Structures are given as structure tokens and as C-alpha cells.
């Protein structure tokens, strides 16, 4: 067998081994999470090695327990999810409101400091979040914003705006400038051009960016821990789950149900939008 043939065979086989391995490591942990959330804690303790739920063990009580409000003896995750949703959606709206004009300016306009501005914004990520945490904590305490979801959303905006500008800019530069010139000739002001021509064309990128920001805000943990830990009423789901898993009083399978509840919204959104992102909108915009 020649070397070429040998390698062809070898890598042809290895490829399937790798594919199987990847499927295993990405899917099994999530299957494990869902599976554990559907069985009572006794079943887990009796047979920790089992990877399925027997029909007689199958239960949804874990979900009832985790979602029920704390007054009814549950863990009140419904309330926490509402908090998370408010913070995340607020962050997405504010971030896009700031990032759309910002990225447009960076990609299209020449202004004082336009070269440096991206570098300055990206430098945000050079500093560890723990470094920002102390002064922010004190500042917010003075402004009366500590323990409030508004303060948290503002911090998230600062953490997500740079990457949003970067993502949007990369898309905006692919929109032909001729489209905008045409709009200007038709009498659009710059803002009208932005709103009526550029934004519709950039819709896929806006979706992608918004989704990414939502994901970051929904999943964030450190700032939520620092700002909200003392105030269980305004906990986000991530924080609530982390705080509860430290204790022993809530059973692990109930917390697994909490993990599923925390994970499902992000994953659903992600899969729903993955298709949207593939639709190219610019194609043909420049033709005749």
C-alpha cells in the first residue's frame, strides 16, 4: 500500500472516530442533565451509574418543586427567570441602541479618533472583570443601584458593547456603499439612511449580535454574584442555581431541573436563530 493510500484510509477512519467522540462529549452531558432532572433523588443514590430513567421513577415533581414560588415551599425559579429575562432583554436593547450608531460610525465615517476607537473599546477585555468589580460595587452603592437589576444591566452593556460593535462593523463593511449613496441622492438624511436602508440590510447581523448579547447577559455570573447576592428577591437564575447548589437542603435532582430551566431558553433561542443567520440579505441589493 502506498503512503497516500494508507493515509487516506487512516484519516478516513479517524474522521469517524473523531465525529463519534465529539458527539459523545457534547451531547452526553446535556442528556445526563435532562435525565437526572426527571428522576427522584432516591433513584440517583441507589444507582448512580444508570444512564436512563425507568418508567416507574419518571417524575416531573422536580420541575414543580423548582418552579413553585418560595411561599409555596418551592425554589421560586419562575421569579428568577423573570429577573434574568428583564436584565437580558434590557441589556440587548441598550447594547444595540449604542452599538448600531457606534458600529456605523466606525465602519463608514471618518472622524477624529476613528482609527483608535475600536482598539480602545476592545481593550475593555484586557482587564479582568474582578478588577472592575470593586469600584463598580462602591459606585453603585453610592448611587443606590446596588441590588438593582438596572445597575446590573448597565454593567452588562459595558461588557457587551465592544464585541457588538466589532460584530456589526464586520457586517456593515460588506454592505456596498453605493446603496447608501443612492439613498442620499433620493434625499435621505444620514439618520434616515441608517434607519431605512442600512438597518434592514443588517438585520441578520443585528439578530446574531442581539442573540450573542442575550446569551452573555443570561449566562453571566460574577457581577450578579457581587451585586445581588444579598438580595434574593432580585437574583438571576444563574445566581439562584449557584447559591442553592452550595447548600445541602435542596436535592441534586431538583437542582438539575433548575439547570435545565436555566439552559433551555438560551439553547432554544440559539437553534431558532441559527437558521435566520444563514439568510444572506445583501445579495442583489447592489444590482441594478
Amino acid at each position, binding site marked *: 500500500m502506498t503512503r497516500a493510500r494508507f493515509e487516506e484510509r487512516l*484519516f478516513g477512519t479517524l474522521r469517524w472516530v473523531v465525529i463519534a467522540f465529539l458527539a459523545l462529549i457534547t451531547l452526553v452531558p446535556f442528556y445526563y442533565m435532562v435525565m437526572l432532572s426527571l428522576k427522584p433523588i432516591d433513584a440517583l443514590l441507589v444507582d448512580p*451509574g444508570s444512564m436512563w430513567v425507568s418508567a416507574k421513577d419518571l417524575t416531573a415533581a422536580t420541575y414543580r418543586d423548582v418552579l413553585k414560588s418560595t411561599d409555596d415551599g418551592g425554589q421560586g425559579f419562575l421569579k428568577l427567570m423573570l429577573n434574568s429575562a428583564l436584565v437580558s432583554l434590557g441589556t440587548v436593547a441598550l447594547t444595540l441602541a*449604542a452599538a448600531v450608531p457606534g458600529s456605523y*460610525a466606525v465602519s463608514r465615517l471618518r472622524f477624529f479618533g476613528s482609527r483608535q476607537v475600536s482598539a480602545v473599546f476592545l481593550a475593555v477585555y484586557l482587564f479582568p472583570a474582578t478588577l*472592575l468589580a470593586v469600584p463598580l460595587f462602591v459606585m453603585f452603592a453610592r448611587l443606590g443601584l446596588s441590588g438593582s437589576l438596572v445597575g446590573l444591566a448597565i454593567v452588562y452593556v459595558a461588557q457587551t458593547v465592544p464585541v457588538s460593535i466589532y460584530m456589526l462593523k464586520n457586517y456593515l463593511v460588506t454592505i456596498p456603499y453605493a446603496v447608501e449613496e443612492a439613498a442620499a441622492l433620493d434625499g435621505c438624511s444620514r439618520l434616515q439612511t441608517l434607519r431605512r436602508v442600512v438597518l434592514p440590510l443588517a438585520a441578520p447581523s443585528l439578530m446574531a449580535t442581539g442573540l450573542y448579547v442575550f446569551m452573555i447577559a443570561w449566562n453571566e455570573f460574577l457581577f450578579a454574584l457581587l451585586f445581588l447576592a444579598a438580595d434574593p428577591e432580585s437574583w438571576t437564575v444563574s445566581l439562584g442555581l449557584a447559591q442553592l447548589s452550595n447548600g445541602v437542603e435542596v436535592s441534586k435532582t431538583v437542582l438539575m431541573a433548575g439547570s435545565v430551566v436555566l439552559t433551555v431558553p438560551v439553547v432554544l433561542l440559539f437553534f431558532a436563530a*441559527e437558521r435566520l443567520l444563514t439568510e444572506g440579505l445583501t445579495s442583489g441589493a447592489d444590482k441594478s
Partner: protein
Amino acid sequence: MTTIDSRGTAKQAGPRPPAGGRPRARRPLTASRRENRAGLAFVSPTFLVVLVVVIVPILWTVLLAFQDAKLVDIQGMGLFGNWSLENFTDVFASAGFWSSLGTTLVYTVGATAGSVLLGLVAALALRRPFRGRGLLRGSMLLPYVAPVVAVTFVWQVALSPQYGVVNEWGRDVFGWDDPVAFLSTRQYEVNLLGWHVDLPLALLTVIAFEVWRYFPFAFLFLLARLQAVPDTLEEAATVDGATVSQRFRHVLLPQLMPVIALLCVLRFIMTFNKFDDVYLLTGGGAGTDVAAVRVYEFLTSRFDVGAAAAQALVLAVVLTALLGVYFRFFAKRVQEEA
């Protein structure tokens, strides 16, 4: 912010009006000056947020690092207290600082290299279409998309010595004698052909977690780049008799090198500053006390704001220095290869 020609905002943002105090409405602005004003007005909201929530806190941290500040008295404290270098001498002299820095470096390098490598392997495997590729590609992003709190919790449960599936299967299938406490074992003695090796088990587990969680990120970038490589390049190499590995080494890799370099830098920065993964998995115990967790400990258990700030600052300097070295020595080579 919204209207470009509204006088108030434009005046603040734009360059100074011409001297002489002539009424400005008389002279129409040139196109480039209008563009300048529009640009500044458009970036000002972003700039404002970044200024208030990032730049000001960083400057304040620098000030705090040189002062003796505890969390209780910081509220009433002025900006400028008594200057001292005490925090820095404390940080360098404190027990565990250097070992923590070493741990951070091992963790960062291991996680960065591992995730980029696994991402590369994944991108190569999923490059050509096969049945179910779209589904697998989507599900491969799951570790990256899912909330960190949820996935660390799953890992904790799965690796638990009492009720974890890994230990149970390890005992049944591989015949382990005792359950292995993956997340709380500082050193695990392994007998390998008569050699005794102490594995830093908890640290390795945390690195494995990080590789698992972030390889999809590398995978996405690398797959996109791979699919942009024109087929003709490889076809030409095949005609010339290049084998699969030779085509990878001499055709694909040079094309991928710039992306790989960028990914390494990005992942290095992100992992170096990473807090939540390690904190949630081990709490920084069992030899996983990476620097970010240490800063958090200084802050919350000792309430020593000054020392926390000084330590965070030292870290930022170390990171900047490492990046400087990287760009000085490697960036050029990568560009040449590209």
C-alpha cells in the same frame, strides 16, 4: 444623541468653533466636518458607557492599589488617601502568590492550547458534508452556549465520588478500586510502569472543563476559514502527489495560521482573566487557585480592597507583558507564513 444637526450635542462633541465668536449658522459646514460631527455623535453613547463603567473604575482601581483601603471605610474615603506601596509588597510577599501565578499560567496555556487544538480537529472532521452534519455542528456549540452555572453543576454531579456517573462506570467498567474525587484532589498518585507520578488532578480536570467549554469557539472560526479555502489549492497538491497529512501541513495549515494565532491570543486573554469556571467547579481549592479567584477571595473574605486592587493590577501588567512578548516575536512570523 439622535439628531446630528442639533446644536447642543454637536457642539460638545465636535471640534472647537472657529475663533472670533462669529455666529456659526452663517457658514455651512463642509462635508468632512459634518462627517466628523456625525461620527463623534454616533460613538458618544458607547463611549459614555465604556467611560463610566470601565475606564473610570480602572483608574480608580489604580488609585486604590496604592492606598490602604478596606471595604468598610472605602465608602467615606476621598479619592486620594495616604499613598503607599504596602499593598504591592504584601502581594509579592504573601504566601501563595507565585504559586498562584504559576497555576494561572499552566491553566491558561493548557486550556488555550487544548481548546484550539480540539477545535481544529473538530473543524477538520466536519469539513466535508455527511448525513447529520448540520445537527452535529449545532449541537457542538452547546457547551459554549449553555450557561456556565448549569454546565459546571452537571460536571460536579457527574464527577462526584458519591453519586457521580463517572466514578460508578469507572468502577464497573475499568475496575477502579476507589472513587476518584476529581475536583478536590490536589495530587493523584499514578503508577505508570513502575514510575510514581503525582498528577495535579483537580487542575487537570478544570483544564479539561475549559477545553470542553471553549473548543466550539475555535471550531466555529476554523471551520469558517477552512470552507473559504479554495478547493483548487488542494486539488493541485493532490495531483502533485501530496498525501493527506502533507496537504494539511503545507496547504491548509498555512491558510489557517492567522486564525489560529488570533484564536490563541483571544483565548489566552479570556482564560487568564477567567473567574467563574474555576470558582464554580472547585472554589479555587485543591491546587486550582488561579489568580482571578484569589482576587475575589481578597475582596470578599478579607475585605481588603487595596490588596485586591494591587493584585488585579499586577495581573493586568503580567498579561500585557506576555501579550507584548507575543506580538514582538510571533506576530511577524505568523504574518510571513500567511
